[in-house]
């Protein structure tokens, strides 16, 4: 008989000073807390190879209003498609951890600096197109919601075994559009939690 797992509860409105103490300082001069950060929104390590990219987006609620107190976490493979986890036997040699955390600002914006991930193994020996798993926490969310970011300039999206489980008319909500800023690629990924063009979330 398995144990009952500990239920989730909301992250609430006041997590930032503990979980993302530096993030808020970017837009609020009073927003620096003395606590140190474990996880930041910059995943790039000096030894990581691959294409440096930025990811940026706005998260909005069912009224289209920005969610200014969300915490977005991302988990991704390195440029060679390897996860920095004991479960992936091809563990990278680089210090690249593949994990980032961004607290949204007053406009509901989040952002990451990272390396574009490579394709990773999928079910039944089929490769998955490059993607990043998103885990979203917020006041008003009693449990996290998971989604995925795919890249608009990746042809393998069409054959991705997960994307193909999503109704065709909703797939576009998972595709981040490529732009350029300061000579570097930036992928725009807005998350609509509810309502029109609602982002696809996964039951995993």
């Amino acid at each position, binding site marked *: 008989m398995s144990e009952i797992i500990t239920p989730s*509860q*909301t992250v609430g409105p006041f997590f930032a000073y503990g979980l993302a103490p530096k993030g808020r300082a970017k837009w609020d001069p009073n927003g620096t807390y003395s606590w140190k950060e*474990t996880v930041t929104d910059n995943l790039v390590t000096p030894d990581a190879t691959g294409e440096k990219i930025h990811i940026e987006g706005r998260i909005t609620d*069912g009224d289209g209003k920005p969610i200014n107190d969300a915490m977005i976490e991302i*988990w991704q493979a390195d440029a060679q498609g390897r996860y920095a986890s004991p479960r992936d036997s091809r563990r990278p040699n680089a210090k690249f951890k593949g994990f980032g955390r961004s607290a949204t600002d007053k406009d509901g914006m989040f952002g990451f600096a990272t390396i574009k991930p490579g394709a*990773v193994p999928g079910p039944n020996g089929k490769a998955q197109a490059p993607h990043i798993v998103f885990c979203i926490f917020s006041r008003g969310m009693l449990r996290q919601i998971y989604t*995925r970011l795919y890249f608009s300039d990746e042809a393998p999206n069409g054959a991705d075994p997960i994307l193909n489980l999503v109704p065709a008319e909703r797939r576009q909500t998972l595709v981040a559009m490529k732009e350029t800023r300061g000579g570097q690629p930036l992928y725009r990924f807005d998350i609509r939690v509810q309502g029109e063009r609602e982002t696809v979330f996964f039951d995993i």
Partner: protein
Amino acid sequence: MPLIYPKESLDVFPKHLSPGYRSTVKRSPSKPLIVVPHTLSELTGPVYGHDVIQENDNDLTKQHKSEPLGERIIVHGQVLDEDKRPVPETLVEIWQANACGRYVHLVDQHPAPLDPNFTGAGRTVTDKNGYYKFITVKPGAYPWGNHPNAWRPNHIHFSVFGTSFLTRLVTQMYFPGDYLFPYDPIFNSVTDEKARNRMVSTFDLDNTVPDWALCFRWDIVLRGREATPLDEEKH
């Protein structure tokens, strides 16, 4: 054998839409979630070890010049999987209000005093037996705007990583016998009583330090168990 993460275990979680907690109304997905298999992307997860922990990160009473006001307490327990096996070397982060029920956070408007000797944030990594331990002060109850005269029961926020990105858990630890339980829509968003009790710590007299601090024990059970022969057949 690597762990599997049956979705049925999530049945005890709150529903995304729990209207008693008003903010869920506009912040819950309205379309059905898309069922997908667990791939390497979900079965792996970030690893943070003892190298990210600094002295006094797990002692919230020693992070400033003097000691904070309030009732000093020890909060400890084990992080376990669904088979009751310890989850070693996993990151546990906490944050909480001070003894007066006030958070350091800029947005907190509750007219209760801040304590210059208390931030209210902590972190630690479980040992090889899945044990964690924090020293802190008991957080106060505080009002919130959900409904008239709404008060949150005393609680400490926890963030735990575990063995994969599927085990990621953010939750709240409550204190035994809190008289605010029946009135709190967040606590009661977990409708199963046994599951609700998972969120409530127990008073731990044996680990109280005489003349110094009371102690509360709270074990955290994350998703994940070994596959049974039946599960193997399904694959």
